[in-house]
């Protein structure tokens, strides 16, 4: 069970943007709350000034309160939004003047006003109330004054501040979001650069990464380097192992074969000669099988570490022709290279060589003497190497399975072979993004096409 991979950059960006959003909202709310308090305070201060000026204007005459309302007491309540003004003046529990029902008289003395917010005359109002006891004969009188004001101007101020706060919050958020994108990109840049530089390397380039990296990445890079060192070691070991194994198997077999041949010359008894020939043939089979097995192992190994180089298919093929012409001559076969100028490809030359050699080997093995074997190198549109002969051709009923491992045809008679040649050719073709095509020619003869891609 593999969890869906998560992008580090996306997570970082989202976290930063989310943080910015939270901060922006917090900023907006704090400003609003603060503005609300300030606006409320300034309204309260004016109400307090008004109610105090009324209180100061009160005098008691013959046990009756006289209050010469100062013009400023109400004039100071003028606001840009023309807020409505209400007031009530009580002597003890009796309304002397103003609006009934605004606020009841309270008994306790309060020189600093008590503020409250409530509905009055169809609007929300802020009320400031003071109560004071004035000395008088025969007994002191209590004076309660309330001044109230609607909150239209306050609401207007708040709206303006809210809009400004929202604009600033939004701008802050956009800025922070931009910075979050930039930060996450630049933070992860070293990581991407390392990945790119490692990906750009050739398959056999297992040198340690030496560029200076941020401290957070150095554990990753040093374990990567350790891993590559180990890998390099084991690869070198495998390659030498394969070469060593081939050598170890073939050398004793060659020795045994030469002994058998010498013995064959000495013995005269027909049945002994028969047995020796069977022995030599078995040795040939084993030697061939060992060689092909090791080649196959080599192909499998190189396929995983494909090392593409700029090579010319024609050059490779003409090299093979040069090497195999003596063999062909011995079999009275004519080996021909057909080409129309160089065919450059990016490929592993050792693998291509191996595949073509196996195909040519088949053509030489399975065709009768005095025939022609052609190697045709073409490039339309993909590069191909075609090997044709004029022999018996592939067995039609087996043609689809011939490239399976150890699969030999029923047409082999006593030809030595292991059934791995076409498997190798096919693996090489697939390693280069192509495939192996087998068909029989109309006029007789087999045709094997190694399709490669650029």
């Amino acid at each position, binding site marked *: 069970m593999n969890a869906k991979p998560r992008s580090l950059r996306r997570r970082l960006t989202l976290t930063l943007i989310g943080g910015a959003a939270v901060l922006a909202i917090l900023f907006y709310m704090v400003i609003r709350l603060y503005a609300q308090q300030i606006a409320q305070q300034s309204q309260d201060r004016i109400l307090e000034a008004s109610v105090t000026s009324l209180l100061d204007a009160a005098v008691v005459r013959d046990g009756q309160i006289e209050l010469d309302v100062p013009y400023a007491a*109400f004039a100071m309540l003028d606001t840009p939004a023309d807020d409505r003004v209400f007031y009530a003046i009580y002597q003890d529990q009796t309304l002397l003047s103003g609006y009934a029902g605004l606020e009841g008289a309270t008994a306790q003395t309060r020189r600093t006003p008590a503020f409250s917010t409530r509905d009055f005359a169809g609007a929300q109002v802020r009320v400031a109330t003071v109560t004071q006891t004035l000395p008088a004969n025969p007994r002191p009188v209590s004076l309660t004054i309330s001044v109230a004001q609607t909150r239209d101007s306050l609401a207007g101020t708040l709206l303006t501040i809210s809009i400004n706060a929202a604009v600033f919050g939004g701008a802050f958020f956009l800025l922070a979001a931009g910075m979050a994108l930039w930060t996450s990109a630049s933070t992860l840049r070293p990581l991407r650069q390392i990945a790119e530089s490692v990906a750009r390397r050739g398959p056999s380039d297992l040198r340690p990464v030496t560029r200076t990296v941020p401290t957070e990445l150095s554990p990753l890079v040093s374990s990567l380097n350790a891993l590559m060192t180990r890998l390099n070691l084991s690869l070198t070991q495998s390659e030498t192992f394969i070469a060593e194994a081939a050598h170890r198997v073939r050398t004793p077999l060659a020795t045994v074969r030469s002994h058998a041949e010498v013995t064959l010359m000495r013995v005269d008894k027909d049945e002994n000669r028969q047995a020796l020939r069977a022995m030599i043939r078995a040795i040939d089979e084993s030697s061939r099988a060992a060689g092909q097995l090791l080649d196959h192992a080599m192909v499998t190994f190189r396929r995983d570490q494909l090392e593409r180089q700029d090579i010319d298919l024609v050059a490779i093929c003409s090299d093979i022709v040069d090497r195999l012409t003596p063999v062909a001559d011995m079999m009275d076969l004519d080996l021909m290279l057909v080409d129309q100028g160089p065919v450059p490809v990016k490929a592993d030359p050792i693998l291509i060589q191996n595949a073509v050699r196996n195909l040519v080997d088949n053509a030489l093995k399975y065709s009768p003497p005095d025939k022609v074997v052609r190697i045709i190198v073409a490039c339309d549109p993909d590069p191909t190497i075609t090997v044709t002969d004029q022999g018996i051709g592939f067995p039609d009923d087996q043609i689809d399975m011939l490239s399976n491992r150890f699969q030999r045809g029923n047409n082999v008679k006593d030809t030595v072979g292991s059934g791995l040649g076409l498997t190798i050719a096919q693996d090489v073709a697939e390693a280069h993004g192509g495939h192996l095509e087998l068909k029989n020619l109309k006029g007789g003869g087999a045709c094997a096409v190694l399709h490669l891609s650029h």
Partner: protein
Amino acid sequence: MRGLAFVALILWAGLARAADFEERQVFDAPEATQTLRVLSSTDTDSFAPVLTGFIAQNPSVSIDYAVAGSADIVDIIAQCGDCFDVVISSAMDLQLKLANDGLARRLPDVDPSAGSQWRQSLFGFTHEPATIVLNRAAFAGRPMPKTRQELIEALRADPEFFRGKVGTYDVRLSGLGYLFATQDARTSETYWRLMEVFGSLGALLYCCSGAMIDDLAQGDLFVAYNVLGSYAATRPETREKVTIITPTDFATTMMRTVLVLDTTSQAEAATNLVRYLTSGIWAETDRPGYPLPAIGVTEVPPPAGVVTLEPGLLVYLDALKRSLFLGAWSSALEQ
């Protein structure tokens, strides 16, 4: 049935109110589909040209024009909130109180200059200074007083000549008189000295500008204080007999204000009327020297002494303040 009862109720309400009104007249529109009910402190004669001008522009709106004293207007509205659609009054303080108490509708569509409106519900549309009007014959050979101080000196110089020949508003009866008096008192102490001189000369007290100007023209009065000068200026029969003086020390200037009652069911027609009044078109098209000088038509910039629409106007309406003021006023005038 219910509709009939409703009509009956309205008729009854109308009859019951009839006694409160000084005048009531319907100005019919040619294609009348609705009738706008206007309660005003301005007499019908003075306001008729404005109303006919409005009807010419709005031929579907008839106007039922009722006139009452500015103080009575408050009582009428208090008793029957939905008997009228529009209230026009010269008592700015009482109008402001109506708006402050939430009886006036906000008219966001009306766009007057900022100084002449309050809460977008109370709109001033005239500038009318309080003046000193003198009987020209009585002052023949005497220096014409240009300020209150000069008036005091003129009166003191010849008390026997002026005794019983000076007059002003009875501020206990007239809302406009009270507004002028309180604003004068707020502005300068000279007012009180003038009232003391008036009291010592046995001043006559009037309910309205019209009556004062009549008496001036007939020679029963030599000096009238705080009269709407524009009234005197437009009456052809009085024009030659009086001299109108706008005091140069300070001239308390009142704005006639209009508001639309919140209970109205004809908000659009009412808004149109307010727009018509605040536009000042009526003053431009009508005869020159029309008694109501529209804002901005007669003087640009507005005169210095204009009473502003602000909560401070509520101060003199306070019961305690009013009784103190009236007490002081009475003791100054009734010596």
